[in-house]
């Protein structure tokens, strides 16, 4: 079964706008990761946030984690056409030996 669920399923914005997507999960986690997948390509790791962290930044990306609500959000600021991709959250548990549970993804389209 899917651990993470992203919301919205799809998002269409103009260049320069911010894009926010959310991820909810069901069980306790050790960390939560966000990945990007361009059409027809493999997944690229964006950011990892550990269960004892609340917020993390990487360039134009900001990730928050609320373990009490079992949810995370990914914010992309000042979006560019090159940000057009599917974004996936993935959760890892302490006893999972590398097993990541992925959500269904949010498809983001950024138009110039």
């Amino acid at each position, binding site marked *: 079964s*899917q651990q993470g669920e992203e919301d919205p399923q799809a998002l269409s914005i103009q260049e320069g706008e911010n894009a926010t997507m959310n991820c909810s999960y069901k069980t306790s986690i*050790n*960390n939560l*990761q966000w*990945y990007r*997948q361009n059409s*027809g*390509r*493999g*997944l*690229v*790791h964006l950011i*990892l946030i550990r269960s004892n962290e609340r917020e993390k930044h990487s360039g134009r990306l900001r990730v928050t984690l609320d373990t009490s609500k079992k949810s995370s959000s990914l914010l992309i600021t000042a979006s560019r056409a090159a940000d057009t991709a*599917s974004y*996936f959250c993935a959760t*890892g*548990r*302490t*006893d*999972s*030996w*590398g*097993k*990541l*549970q*992925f959500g*269904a*993804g949010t498809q983001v389209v950024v138009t110039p």
Partner: protein
Amino acid sequence: DTAVSQTPKYLVTQMGNDKSIKCEQNLGHDTMYWYKQDSKKFLKIMFSYNNKELIINETVPNRFSPKSPDKAHLNLHINSLELGDSAVYFCASSQTPSGGRTDTQYFGPGTRLTVL
């Protein structure tokens, strides 16, 4: 200088055939994975190997047999292919999970398998 590579990129074959997908990583990682992504983009782990030993086997039909000749390679052999096997298969690698935890994974470009 590709980090995780897979061959072939596309594979079109008939039902009942046997096929293999190869994966190699040059990141020096000890752990490698196979994932299946279906037409709705759900990505699900199938197997993981650590130092050539099977660590995770996610109730995948035994028609799927992974093989790791060394820690830089993890191949996937599929016997008696079925229509439902059509998907994109991704290989990934990571550092050895510390204390059983997860770490950043690096994905290959994927192999799109179409079974006719």
